[in-house]
Structure formats: structure tokens, C-alpha cells
């Protein structure tokens, strides 16, 4: 639960996403995961980066509107069925997933999924019960 996601408000116009990623690139921020949710008029860019605090500072100083949200990252064997099995567990445990997306990083043959759920405590307990340890930011090499 110690991984922080940055969500940035994006106006739905050409170049908005490029501007934001360029800003991070120019400051040497490494993107580890990215997901966009959008409506006709605006979008929310969600990111896991190597240094969330520094990235947030840069974005804020450039007038972005953002929010930091704790998310759960789970490592899965990079093979067919892994995600389905995990989702079965979450479903049986009545976990409400708000959204999820994948990390670019593959370490030790594993794929990593980012989860945002409505009840973090319930998810932690369910994962522990099933012998699944969420991935820490140290394991992912994040600051």
C-alpha cells in the first residue's frame, strides 16, 4: 500500500498529454505505468513514476491540478490466467475495483497490476488471507 499514484487533470485538446509527458521527461522522471480515463471534455492521467514527490512538485509548479492516491500493486506470474485467478479472488472477496492498469516493469518474470479499490483495508486483509503480498515501492525501485 505504499505506492503512490499521481493523477493529473487533462483538458481534452491536442497536445495536452505531450506537454505533460515532455515536462516530466525534461526533468528526468521515469514513467513506470500510465493510464488515461477520459470523457468527451476532459481526462484523468494516472501515473506511477520513479519519484512521485518530485514529479508532483514539478507538475504543481507548472500549474497542473493533481492528486496523489495510494494504490495497491500486485505481482503476477507473466502467464495466461494469472490476472483472471487474482480477479476471481477479489470478486469472491467482494472487492470493488474502481480501476486498474498494468505497470510497464517486468521483474523476475512477473507482471504488475495497479489496483484502486473502494476499500483498501478489506483488500489488504483479503490478499494476506490468500498469501499474496502487495509489492512495495522499494521492490519496484521507486523513491
Amino acid at each position, binding site marked *: 500500500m505504499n505506492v503512490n499514484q499521481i493523477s493529473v*487533470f487533462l483538458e481534452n485538446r491536442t497536445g495536452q498529454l505531450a506537454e505533460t509527458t515532455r515536462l516530466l521527461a525534461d526533468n528526468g522522471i521515469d514513467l513506470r505505468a500510465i493510464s488515461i480515463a477520459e470523457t468527451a471534455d476532459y481526462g484523468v492521467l494516472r501515473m506511477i513514476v520513479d519519484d512521485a514527490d518530485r514529479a508532483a512538485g514539478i507538475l504543481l509548479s507548472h500549474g497542473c491540478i493533481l492528486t496523489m492516491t495510494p494504490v495497491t500493486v500486485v505481482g503476477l506470474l507473466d502467464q495466461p490466467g494469472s490476472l483472471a485467478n487474482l480477479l476471481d479472488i477479489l470478486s469472491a472477496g467482494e472487492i470493488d475495483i474502481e480501476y486498474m492498469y498494468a505497470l510497464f516493469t517486468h521483474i523476475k518474470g512477473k507482471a504488475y497490476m495497479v489496483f484502486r479499490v473502494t476499500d483498501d483495508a478489506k483488500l489488504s486483509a483479503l490478499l494476506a488471507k490468500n498469501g499474496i503480498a502487495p509489492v512495495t515501492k522499494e521492490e519496484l525501485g521507486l523513491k
Partner: protein
Amino acid sequence: MKRYYQPEIETASPEQIRAWQDERLVKQVKHVWDNVPYYRKKMEEKGVTPEDIKSVADLHKLPFLTKDDLREAYPYGLLAKPLSECVRIQSTSGTTGKRVVAFYTQHDVDLWEDCCARAITAVGGTNEDVCHVSYGYGLFTGGPGLNGGSHKVGCLTLPMSSGNTERQLQFMTDLGSTILCCTPSYAAYLSETIREKGLRDQIKLKAGIFGAEAWSENMRRDIEEGLGIKAYDIYGLTEISGPGVSFECEEQTGMHINEDHFIAEIIDPNTGEVLPDGTKGELVFTSITKEAFPLLRYRTRDICVLTRKPCSCGRTHVKMSKPMGRSDDMLIIKGVNVFPSQIEQVLLEQGYAANYQLIVDRVNHSDTLEVQVEMTADNFSDSLAKISEMEKKLVEALKAMLGIYAKVTLVAPKSIARSEGKAVRIIDKRKI
């Protein structure tokens, strides 16, 4: 063709009109002084008594009335006759707070209908015509005003009211409507529908009287071509009586103000100083014949120009241009009065910054309003569902405040230009 409804009045010499105005103004000021304590107090504060008003030349000495006064005096504060002598009220399409209600004695209804009859006659209306009135009937003055005028001219009057386009077209074709009275946007819509249904050959319309909304010369041409008619403008406001305060003649170069009933002035909206004819400024009306609701020096907030150039139609009454704008920031959207300050209030209540932009447009001849507002840190969330919910709440709050739907667009912070001094908040794309 009968050209005038009341020729002796409509073509009277300027001296005669001035003589009527002098006499009626003096009488009216006395009537208001005696019967409207609200206005009497205003006069006393300005140190003016009825004795100071001997002719139109003294009109400038009188205090102004504004829409705020009408709200403050609601409902009976400006009434100058006992209710037992009143036979009608009409009301404006105000949306917040108190509406404006205007009272009429039978005499007042008659003079209002005379004004509308002059307008109908000016577009060629006679007792041979079928006058199709598609303005709303009810508190809105459009329907009742033209209906009354049509009766006076002796037209066969079709009190259609607004809406139900199928039925409008059925009556129009079956009963052979020759004069159409409605808003210009509805006329454009009818024209479009008639074209789509291929009914043009079955339409006998020859003229239309279109008001209650601003419209352009382009729109006039579209309507005239689409319906095969001549399209005329009409102007009025509930506070002064309703449609027919002024109307267009065959020359189509401005609207003749019925000066035997209403004295028009143009003032500088900032200083209140009276400006000479031909100068652009705010239009102010004094009603000199109305009994129940006689407003003196009422500020319309409409910006226009008066001209006394002789008119080829033979009418001698002063002409006003189409209103070119407003001296306040009021917008009229779908016929509803909208003040940016109302929108600002809602935004602040909903946790948004008062930094916003209004985009007004006309799509398929219907007005649209878009409110662009900057996203704030407090209202932002990583969850799209939560943002959508906030947005929905804002749309609902705006609807409750304004009475019309406004599309909300959330934009990036600092993306709406800030300007020194008064911010440019309104982009009106309507080609008016």
C-alpha cells in the same frame, strides 16, 4: 392597401406629436405623484415636484426607474390604480427572485392592442387576412398582445400559441394563414420544416411579425426566402406594455415608436445624461397614457439609436434601430434573462473559482449556453466517477438558478484568459 391603423395619429406632424406628449406627460406625472408613493419618494429625493414638469423639455429632471426598482416594489409598489380597476396582469420571463408583474386597466389593454394593430396594419394586414399567432399565450405578452391587435384590425385570428409544429402547419395550410406572428427563431424553424415537408406550395403567408428576440439581417433574408414573405421586426417590453412599443414599416429600416403613448430618450448609460438623436445609447421609456402601471423614465438597458429622418411610409413617429446590445451584462438565452453574476454565484457555491467563460451560440436556430470553468484542486479526484458527479451537481445547480440547461465544460486551470480590469467572460457566437 390600408396603410395605417390610426392615420391621424401615425402621420401627425411632429409638432402635434410633441403637443400630445407635453400635455400627457404633465398629466401622467401628476397621476404618478398622487398614486405611487414609491416614485413620489424618488421625486422628493431629487427635489422634483409635478410643478417642475411643464413639458417634455423637463423630462430629464425626473428620476429613473430600473428593473431593480420593479423587483423592490413587487408586486403592488408601482401600481397607480385600485386593483378593482385593473383587468389583467402580464409578467416577464424572469428566473430568479421576484418576477416583474405589470398591471393593466381596460384602457391600458386597449392602447396596447392599438399599438399591435398599427404593427399588423403596417405589414399590410386588413380584415381579409388570417393572422396566425404563434407567440406563447399566458403571462408572456407576445401572444395576448398580437392576438388583441389582430382582433382590432379585424383579421381572422388563429390563437395558436407556441409549440406543436405539426398542428401549426396543418392550420397554416388548411386555413390559409397570411400573417405569421412568432419569434424569429420559431419562424426559421417553421420555414425549415415547411421546406423538409415540401409544403411551400400550400403556404399562403405574405408577411411575418417577429420579435421578442434579437435577429440579424441575414436571418431576415433566410426567413423571407424560406417562407416567401416579408419579415418585419417588432419591439416591446412587459414593463412598458408588451410588443408594439415600436414596429417596423414597409421600409424595414428601423421601428417606429408609438410616441403618442411612449416618450423615448437615449441616455449615456454611465452618467444618465440625455444624448441627442442619432447617438448610440441606452433607450429609456416614459409611458404617458397608461393608467395602472405608468412607468416614468424606465431604463430598458437596450442600446440603440433614434432617428427622426422622414420615413417613406409616411409615418412621422421616431424610429429606433434594432437593439445593438445591453448596457448591463444581461444575456437573453432561449428568451430567458441570464446574468453572469448568477452563474458566478453558483460556481462559488459549488467550490469552483469565479474564473469562467460563457459561450453562447445558436445551433439549428436554438440558443445554447456553455459554461467553461477551470478545474480546481479541491474538486479534482483520481476517480472519473467523482468528477462526473461534481459536474452533474453543477449542471443541476445552474439549471435551478437559471431555469435553462447549460452545458458545463471543465477546463485546465489558468486556461481561461485573465485580463486586467473587467474580465471578458462572454463569447456570444450568435450571428445577430
